[in-house]
């Protein structure tokens, strides 16, 4: 009881957040029911109950299961690649001594993040075409033209790399902010001990950055089933459905005839459950084996 008395202020601070979250996130949760109904907006929640048949329907759709694998594959590599590139850049940027230069570079790398995929995709299609700039450059180096967008094996990697390019600015910002939080005293004492910059980075910087990295990793896992609808939708085509069709693009095409609320809710629920398992699992592992608390 003494504890609570001491702590009441903390609980009080949490109250506003709890209220908002409860009202706007928990109350609408009843909408999950739509996944179990043949939903008609006109009937609302009096719509006929169909139990698991929506799930059966979507999973028995031709080629749906393959989209799950595609989504996973593309997401995982995007996450890993994205983190590596962002961290490397944050480190490189951190080494710049002039603050002004640092800021300029920082602004530039964040720019692709501001653009929407509709625009970027249009440019990508031009650049990556069989006779586009990239292939022309490759030709100069004596490499045969690569079908970045029409070859099933290469397509996912095109998606991964272009997405990393577009989004790494975001991670860089977070890591840079974390880097500024590292006590300069640590570097000074390391210097005194005779450690060169590279050793400093390995043993101090990366170590202290690790919690942030793990944090971003775990947060991304919650997103692993959203492999980037905007990007894929604007860049894919039937010839690469094999490896490029993800859950969201598939559901989108399915719903194009009429607003398929039931299907959307079903797939959404499926994604949520799996994401939950992933996040809980990784949090547990990170805690158990590395002692990191994310949540």
């Amino acid at each position: 009881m003494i504890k609570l008395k001491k702590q009441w202020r903390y609980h009080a601070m949490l109250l506003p957040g709890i209220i908002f979250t409860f009202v706007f996130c928990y109350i609408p949760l009843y909408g999950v029911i739509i996944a179990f109904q043949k939903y008609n907006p006109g009937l609302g929640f009096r719509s006929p109950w169909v139990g698991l048949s929506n799930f059966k329907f979507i999973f028995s759709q031709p080629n749906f299961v393959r989209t799950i694998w595609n989504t996973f594959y593309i997401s995982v590599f995007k996450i890993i690649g994205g983190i590596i590139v962002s961290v490397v850049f944050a480190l490189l940027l951190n080494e710049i001594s002039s603050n002004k230069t640092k800021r300029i570079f920082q602004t530039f790398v964040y720019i692709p993040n501001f653009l929407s995929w509709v625009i970027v995709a249009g440019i990508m299609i031009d650049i990556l075409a069989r006779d586009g700039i990239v292939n022309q450059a490759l030709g100069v180096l004596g490499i045969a033209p690569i079908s970045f967008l029409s070859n099933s094996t290469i397509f996912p990697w095109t998606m991964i790399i272009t997405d990393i390019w577009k989004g790494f600015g975001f991670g860089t910002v977070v890591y840079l902010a974390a880097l500024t939080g590292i006590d300069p005293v640590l570097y000074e004492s390391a210097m005194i001990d005779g450690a060169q910059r590279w050793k400093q980075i390995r043993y101090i910087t990366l170590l202290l950055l690790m919690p942030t990295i793990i944090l971003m990793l775990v947060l991304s896992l919650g997103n692993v089933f959203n492999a980037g609808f905007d990007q894929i939708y604007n860049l894919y085509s039937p010839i690469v459905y094999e490896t490029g069709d993800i859950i969201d693009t598939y559901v989108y095409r399915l719903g194009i005839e009429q607003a398929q609320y039931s299907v959307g809710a079903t797939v959404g629920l499926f994604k949520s459950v799996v994401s939950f398992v992933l996040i809980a699992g990784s949090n547990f592992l990170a805690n158990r084996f590395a002692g990191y608390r994310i949540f």
Partner: protein
Amino acid sequence: MKKKFMVLFIVCVMTIGVVACSRNGGDSSSPSSDASQKTSSVESTASSELVDIWAPYNDAVTLTVGIPQNAGITFPEGQDYDKNIWYTMFKDEFNIQLENLWVSANHSTQVNLAMASDSLPDVFSTDGATLELLVAGGLVADITEIYDTYASEQIKSFQEMDDTIFQTAVYDGKLYGIPKLSCGLIDQPNHVWIRKDWKESLNLSDPETIDDLINIAKLFMEEYGGYGIGETQDLYTFNILAPAWGAYPKIWVETADGTLGYGSIQPEMKEALAAFAQWYKDGILDPDFAISNMAKMFEANINGEIGIQPHGRGGWGYYPGVDVVSNLGEEAIFQAYGIPSANGETVKAPVNFANNGYIVISKNCKNPEAVIKLVNYYIKMLTTKDPADAELILELFSNGLPNIVHSIYMDNPVSDYNQYVDISAALESGDTSTLGTSLSKYNDIVDYMTNATPKAVGNYLQQGDLKSAYSVSKKILDDNNIIKNEMWGLPTETIANSGSTLDDILIQGFTQIIVGDQPVDYFDILIESWKSAGGDQATAEINETYGN
């Protein structure tokens, strides 16, 4: 919250193929159009209630509407969605005040949300699938009686032109919506467009067969470079040219054994695919077509890289025509030709169930007959030839203003056909007095002929040129060389639920065949996958609903 509805320009152009349809009248085919409309109230109803359908209300009546935002509307000074000439006329003529519940760029979502929150406007327009949901939910008014009593002769005559369309709004014998119809079938046939100056300078004759067409393509390639024919990842060109082999993809047809089957899996498709595969190998098709969209395909037109473009619905002139003329000059226009045959048999033009939606009245509407009155008025204004109305017509129908009354407008199913006849006559005689609302299109055509104004080339190539799209389409209609989609109505269950995924199987497979990743015989394996993935079920349903 996680789903965004991405509607892209490209998607729209693909599915609709731009323009072609003019919504400005021409006369209706029924002879009563010239008679003074005011007397029609006496002769109108079979139920012989002497109701004056044109009478205004004594007490003001308010109707709430929900409409889509439309970028084609240019409001004259002082007008906007809430205050405009249409709403003013409604008030003046009938004492009916229209109130906008919403003006949205995502109209269909708004309708769904309003359904869910039980806050539908009194009147709005929507598609067949939503109508079904509305009826099931008991949200719309049964207008059988009201329609009977209040609808004008004109409306009824238009609806009677194709009863199958009208019946799609009838559930359990009761009418729940008024079909909006369309501007007519003349707008549907596809064409092959060929570049005029190249063809003339090489002295080539009109293509009679597919081989002729390919010949032209090859000669163009030799002389001017580039590749021969464009294509998109959705097999747009393929779908347009397939009828040359008697194949009719994406519609339902009568098969050899008398039952109905899906056109895309019939044996004739194999020949079409084989031809395309050969063309791809020969370099006639764009090597990168598998990742191209419509805009990319049309780029080649605008750049002067190709000279042959299959295109739908007479719309080449509007897009990419305008850009082609702006970029390359008026000599570079493409002209329309019918699809040539590959096997000597007459090529038919596939024609789809044509209805642009339904006018729907909410159950909570206090004055449902008011809606019918407004529709009457709209049609009357659309079709009048009375010179006294000329100025009003101009105000009502120009600048895209009719889009404001999206909730209640209806089309005249023979408007475009008649318009083409009228305009052609006027071009010859120079007499424009009877053109009515077609006058502005006529002026556009003349403008192009005199000044080669790029923005007018659309109308010119649709109707004005000697080799205009409609000249070809009219002949097709007159000779009845059409093949109707047997699914002449709303999609059946499997098609509504999984139609797109079934098509995906085919598109993917066809593309692989065309680019050579699979042999032509792969087609047989494909149709087996299609069948077991739900195609068989879809076929059974179609036969049940639409079969004999």
